[in-house]
């Protein structure tokens, strides 16, 4: 157990000497280092290689550790939303809405149906955007750059929808305690409809290009296979777990934000390899589009865009200048004399990569006492060296890309 604490290079040198004497095979150390085009983020893997085959490996993370949890202990609730959209920055609206739902659960605020439907729409759009990047970058890693360039245009269309709703493209800081900061503009609804009209054809084209492509199938089928038992014991959640055959999805297991009103099914793979993860993510894009269509149809007409909680929801500016209560509420919210209970709450949301959980401990003051993010990437990435042992280096690269490890969420 002690030599595991050594620096990986020292540990592998002992193994190299051992195998050199025993069967004369010369092993070598490869550094899949922090700045590497194949790792779509900054994590390092020092691999012990026999030619092309990986014998052993050790991962080092923490290269963009920004101490989110320490910052969260010094920021009031509405300022922590800025942190959450830098967790999994490919689908930041999901993180934002997840954080707002945790705070609302802690404060016991009831959200009107219309706002819940709007939140479902924006979360599913973010999930589509996340899967667009992951699937197309998987194509880039097996050599198909065209797919990436073609599909990224539709991610730009989703960026335009974000801009209509909250003004930002990537780190959206969307929503408030109780709903959204403003009614969605006419162009936002029109752009959502346009996106739903155009995107299916594009996504079919993208899928046809890669799903039955001989090169892509040979590269990904069987690479980085994870069985259900190992996935559950390593804490896999999200598309990586569903690719291994376990149909655990929080939107169905513990429905939040009125997900129970929509019919959608959970795509599940069989043998949990890169090809299954790719297909599960592609199928989930179809499911998300189905959810958005149902949400648009069943959207209740009235209900406004935020819950009526003046204690926590900043009143609009013209009201603050005109009537007294709004001024008092505005002052109390900004100065932080907000009635916060002294409690603990854990709320989980189905993020782009899996179960994104917020464990919030409050002690009645304006800043949380302790906030812990359950980051799916951090938990399932520890199985990477286990999965990749004994496989070739090119399998390791495609496994890393298919697991969609986002550095911001990995070392938050």
């Amino acid at each position, binding site marked *: 157990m002690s030599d595991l604490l050594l620096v990986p*290079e020292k540990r592998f*040198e002992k193994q190299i000497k051992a195998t050199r004497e025993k069967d004369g*095979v*010369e092993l*070598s*150390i490869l*550094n*899949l*280092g*922090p*700045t*590497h085009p194949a790792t779509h983020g900054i994590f*390092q893997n020092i691999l012990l290689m*026999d*030619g*092309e*085959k990986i014998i052993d490996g050790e991962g080092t993370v923490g290269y963009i550790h920004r101490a989110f949890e320490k910052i969260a202990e010094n920021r009031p609730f509405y300022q922590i939303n800025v942190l959450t959209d830098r967790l999994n920055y490919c689908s930041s609206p999901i993180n934002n809405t997840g954080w707002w739902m945790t705070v609302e659960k802690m404060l016991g605020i009831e959200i009107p149906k219309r706002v819940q439907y709007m939140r479902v729409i924006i979360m599913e759009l973010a999930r589509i955007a996340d899967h667009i990047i992951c699937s197309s970058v998987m194509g880039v890693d097996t050599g198909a750059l065209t797919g990436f360039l073609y599909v990224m245009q539709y991610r730009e269309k989703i960026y335009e929808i974000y801009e209509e709703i909250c003004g930002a493209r990537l780190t959206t800081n969307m929503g408030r305690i109780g709903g959204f900061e403003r009614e969605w503009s006419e162009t936002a609804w029109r752009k959502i409809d346009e996106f739903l009209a155009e995107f299916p054809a594009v996504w079919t084209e993208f899928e046809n290009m890669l799903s039955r492509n001989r090169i892509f199938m040979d590269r990904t089928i069987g690479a980085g296979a994870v069985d259900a038992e190992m996935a559950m014991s390593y804490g896999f959640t999200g598309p990586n777990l569903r690719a291994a055959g376990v149909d655990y999805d929080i939107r169905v297991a513990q429905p939040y934000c009125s997900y129970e009103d929509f019919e959608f099914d959970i795509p599940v793979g069989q043998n949990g390899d890169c090809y299954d993860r790719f297909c599960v993510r592609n199928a989930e894009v179809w499911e998300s589009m189905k959810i958005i269509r149902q949400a648009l149809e069943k959207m209740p007409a009235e209900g406004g865009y935020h819950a009526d909680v003046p204690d926590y929801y900043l009143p609009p500016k013209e009201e603050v200048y005109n009537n007294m209560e709004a001024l008092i509420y505005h002052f109390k919210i900004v100065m932080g004399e907000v009635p916060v209970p002294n409690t603990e709450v854990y709320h989980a949301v189905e993020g782009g990569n899996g179960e994104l959980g917020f464990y919030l401990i409050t002690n009645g003051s304006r800043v949380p006492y302790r906030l812990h993010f359950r980051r799916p990437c951090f938990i399932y990435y520890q199985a990477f060296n286990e999965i990749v042992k004994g496989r070739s280096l090119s399998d390791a690269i495609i496994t890393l890309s298919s697991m969609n490890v986002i550095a911001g969420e990995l070392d938050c």
Partner: protein
Amino acid sequence: MQSSQLDLIPILMQLGLAAGFVFVTILVSGFLGPKKASKNKDINFECGIESFGNARVPFNVRYFLVAILFVLFDVEVIFMYPWAINFLELGWEGLAKMGIFMFLLIVGLLYEFKKKGLEFE
């Protein structure tokens, strides 16, 4: 020089121009480009961390085997080029000769297959 050779001079000029342009640009950029060597710059790039161990490690023999086999069959293809050009004039007799040549190499390929030379794992 006969007139036919005179026609070749423009081709030589073209060759000279192409090779010249490449050579001159490399030379000029060699002079104009600033050079700054330092110890830290000359060690090989290892994704940003100091490199450990050396890369001159004896590697597995199967890489060498694959390379030699490639060269062998590549040379075979080169022999086919002259045959492919005057394919019609040589007619059946040419095909027979080429067939024997290729048959010998296919026997070699089968021999490798049996000896598992192409197995990469």
